[in-house]
């Protein structure tokens, strides 16, 4: 099934719904029972996994220029903390997965989403400071203003922070970071990086 390098644009017919499943960059129209392209790119066909019950191959559009990254529930984001309040911290999302966003999206980390344990004893000011770079998980689309983020996992939390003296701080435990210039210890919800 090597039908490669066929260029398609949005609206072009990729195949019949009875023969294929719609993959990325494609959609199925129930009215006409046809699969159309929704992006510009190359039509490619992916054979179904051997053990799948549905033996139709998937047709998708690849090699296209995708639109800018948009946070979705479940995606891992890199965000910069902008404001820390008693019950939540707000942060600007800068990267979604490995892609940087063109324009920032606002997210908030609520008190109950900072860590997995003793969530009622979380002290927001002892977890984040404005300017910290955090890795977080998008919990939900949130409300009209912001996405809800969570750092309640070992690998999530502050990945980079600057001390009051201006040094790049070094993590010393999952709750503390130390300034290499002054030796001062500051409290953070530290992410476990590289493990």
């Amino acid at each position, binding site marked *: 099934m090597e039908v490669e*390098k066929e260029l398609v644009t949005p*609206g072009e017919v990729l195949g019949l719904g009875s023969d294929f499943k719609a993959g990325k960059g494609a*959609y199925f129209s129930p009215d006409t029972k046809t699969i*159309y392209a929704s*992006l510009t790119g*190359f039509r490619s066909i992916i054979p179904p996994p051997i053990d799948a019950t549905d033996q139709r191959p998937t047709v998708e559009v690849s090699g296209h*220029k995708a639109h800018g990254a948009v946070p979705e529930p479940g995606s891992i984001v890199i965000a910069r903390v902008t404001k820390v309040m008693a019950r939540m911290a707000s942060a600007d999302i800068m990267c979604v997965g490995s892609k940087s966003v063109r324009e920032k999206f606002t997210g908030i980390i609520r008190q109950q989403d900072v860590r997995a344990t003793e969530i009622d004893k979380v002290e927001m000011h002892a977890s984040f400071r404005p300017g910290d770079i955090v890795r977080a998980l998008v919990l939900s689309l949130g409300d009209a203003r912001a996405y809800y983020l969570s750092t309640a996992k070992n690998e999530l939390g502050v990945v980079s922070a600057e001390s009051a003296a201006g040094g790049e701080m070094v993590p010393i435990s999952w709750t503390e970071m130390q300034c290499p210039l002054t030796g001062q210890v500051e409290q953070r919800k530290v992410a476990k990086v590289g493990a």
Partner: protein
Amino acid sequence: MAGKRGATPATYSPSLTTAKGKKKPPIFTDDANWVRSDGRHFHQCRPAFLRIATVNSASGSAYAEFGNTKVIVSVFGPRESKKAMMYSDVGRLNCNVSYTTFATPSRGQGSDNKDFSSMLHKALEGAIILESFPKTTVDVFALVLESGGSDLPVIISCASLALADAGIMLYDLVAAVSVSCLGKNLVIDPISEEEVYQEGSFMISCMPSRNEVTQLTVTGEWSTPKISEAMDLCLDACSKLGNIMRSCLKEPLSAPEE
């Protein structure tokens, strides 16, 4: 105007003033012999020039030139919706059409262009898979550099190219074409001059591959057979325009291969 007045001395019009109301330049007579000022046939569109990715800072952009009508459209986003907006499960489309001050012979914008933004929105929203970018907004900014007639259809077609260039998921491209009714004749893709004298206008925007009409506006008085004729004419032109738009989108991708 003077010629017309002399030619019809005995009309049933109650006064001279109403007779003069039908002033037309000599070329726009009811017979089928007049030639369009740019030498086209009645059912012939202007040559179209289309280009995508013309604005670097935008997520997607397109430039369209249909005769003297020149339009540039930039698409930004999907980006964060304005704070004042309500939460929405699906994406939002925000359209804005503006004219340069030098777009028309008389400086300043005509008031008839005010509703173009909402017309553009209505023509495009049915073609965008809004579910693919929840909560965020896609902004479409259209700027008419030169207004040479059939502005709105050119804006719509150009905007759909810009959306495709931005990688926004679309059900189909949107191609739009208008016809003017001048006397007995239907004139496709009218220029400004023809639009001034038109008795009726008909604009359709459709998704050529799905054969669905996203927006349709009619002004003036039309009989049903004439509407059908105009619709067939436009749909045929839309599907041809759609093909031109597709080849424009494919151009940058297919070039490095050879």
